[in-house]
């Protein structure tokens, strides 16, 4: 455990020593707040539904930007050789980096606290969907992170990692969307609906916590962390 924590701490430090992190956070906050408050005062509804609903699309760009350098840079600099010759098991390294990126994401999401505060001041919101929505955002973010980290570990080019993560995330997001589900043979609909990140997100963000959605997110995260361990191990093949 000490090793995982030490690695996570170092990774988190690496995020914050580079100015890129601050630029990212700023863009994320400006974008999510602006998109929301743009229409909030016109709608005159004390609800964060729109804010939460836009998160999957903002994450599409935001999360790959968080994960792209994590393994790719390690490979490019060659430091992966030093890391993997320390007394660290492969899964510990993967977990340490995942935890660090999750903490970074958590901090970014925590900084949107101004939104629920504004909503609470200007009206009397129903807190269920808001709390559920944040939970959904975290779970979905973690799923995107696991995917992005895995993709970062198969290339040494950050830009390539960014673009491929973006494409994969986009694909997994839209296959559960209605316009896709209408256009495919009926037989595949339940499968696509189950695989899509978006469809699981909707029910959680309405404040309904269904064990099926939780299982989906946790197995999604587990699967890609597992693939990440395998890809770190692939130097041994």
């Amino acid at each position, binding site marked *: 455990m000490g090793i995982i924590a030490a690695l996570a*701490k170092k990774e988190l430090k690496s995020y914050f020593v580079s100015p890129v992190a601050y630029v990212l956070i700023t863009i994320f906050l400006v974008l999510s707040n602006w998109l929301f408050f743009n229409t909030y005062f016109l709608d005159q509804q004390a609800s964060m539904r729109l804010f939460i609903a836009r998160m999957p699309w903002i994450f599409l760009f935001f999360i790959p930007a968080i994960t792209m350098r994590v393994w790719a840079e390690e490979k490019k600099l060659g430091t992966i050789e030093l890391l993997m010759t320390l007394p660290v098991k492969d899964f510990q390294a993967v977990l340490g980096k995942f935890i660090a990126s999750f903490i970074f994401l958590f901090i970014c999401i925590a900084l949107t606290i101004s939104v629920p505060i504004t909503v609470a001041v200007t009206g009397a919101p129903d807190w269920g969907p808001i709390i559920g929505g944040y939970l959904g955002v975290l779970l979905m973010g973690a799923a995107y992170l696991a995917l992005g980290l895995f993709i970062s570990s198969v290339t040494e080019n950050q830009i390539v990692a960014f673009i491929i993560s973006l494409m994969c995330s986009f694909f997994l997001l839209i296959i559960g969307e209605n316009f896709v589900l209408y256009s495919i043979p009926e037989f595949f609909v339940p499968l696509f609906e189950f695989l899509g990140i978006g469809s699981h997100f909707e029910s959680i963000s309405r404040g309904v916590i269904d064990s099926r959605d939780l299982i989906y997110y946790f197995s999604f995260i587990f699967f890609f962390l597992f693939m990440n361990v395998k890809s770190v191990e692939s130097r041994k093949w």
Partner: protein
Amino acid sequence: MIEVKNLSKRYGITQAVRDVSFEVKRGEVLGFLGPNGAGKTTTMKIITCYIPPTDGTVSVAGFDILENPLDVRKRIGYLPESTPLYTDLMVEEYLYFVAQMRQIPISQRQQRIKKIIETCSLKEVLKKDIGQLSKGFKQRVGLAQAMIHDPDILILDEPTSGLDPNQIIEIRQLIKKLGKEKTIILSTHILPEVSATCDRVIIINEGQLVASGTPSELQEQAAGDTILYSSIKALKKDIESVLPTLDFVKEFRLIDTQDSFLRYKIITQKTESDPGEQLFSAAVKNNWILSEIHKENLSMEDIFLKLTS
């Protein structure tokens, strides 16, 4: 301490290491010599458990690299080729990170870090980003991270590459000092380094072991013969018809012409009488004028060239 048996490594169709076996005893400094691409780095990566061998076994301090990789890694300090480091961390932060990863108990951590900073003279750059350091300092940070947990074994892949002469001497002295208590494998293609720092030398070429022994043993083994430089004033065809008849001459080559003197490099083989004496009497017999007879033992360079080309 380190036992390598029948080690082979294939990358796809390239055979990087071919059936290499050697042993390193406790407290020995082993020089690992070979041209670029000979398989030195691959062998080191296998010993440090970064990649597994295709065939063969390696045991480090009694632990097999495949069965107990963590036990092996704990006992090894490794400096990879070209010293990869996290460029965005400060030296101090990085050393602290490695100390944590190496699980040095908290009570000793500060002390170990302090000591390593002293050993590697890093005090003045502690608060600097690693990315801003000069090559020499980076190399020292690399050494510091390899030694922070006081390992019994150090594996250093070309520790002096890219350094200026002063820094090279510094690092060599450090290695020599460390070699008194630690087992060290050090790869290089800089030959004087081997005679300067190593107890024993292994030469590999194209993945195969071609020689092993102490530097002086290798000199004797590969040599047996010395090189003779001689400047002779006579007709070229005369000299070149007489030289092959002398029994100490193995090969000869005209290397220089100055005024009417022809300078030859003669590689000798073992004979009963002294080559210099023989050459002198041949010169007297043929009325040659000699202005130089100069004997030289084969240097590490010559041995290396001889074994690897």
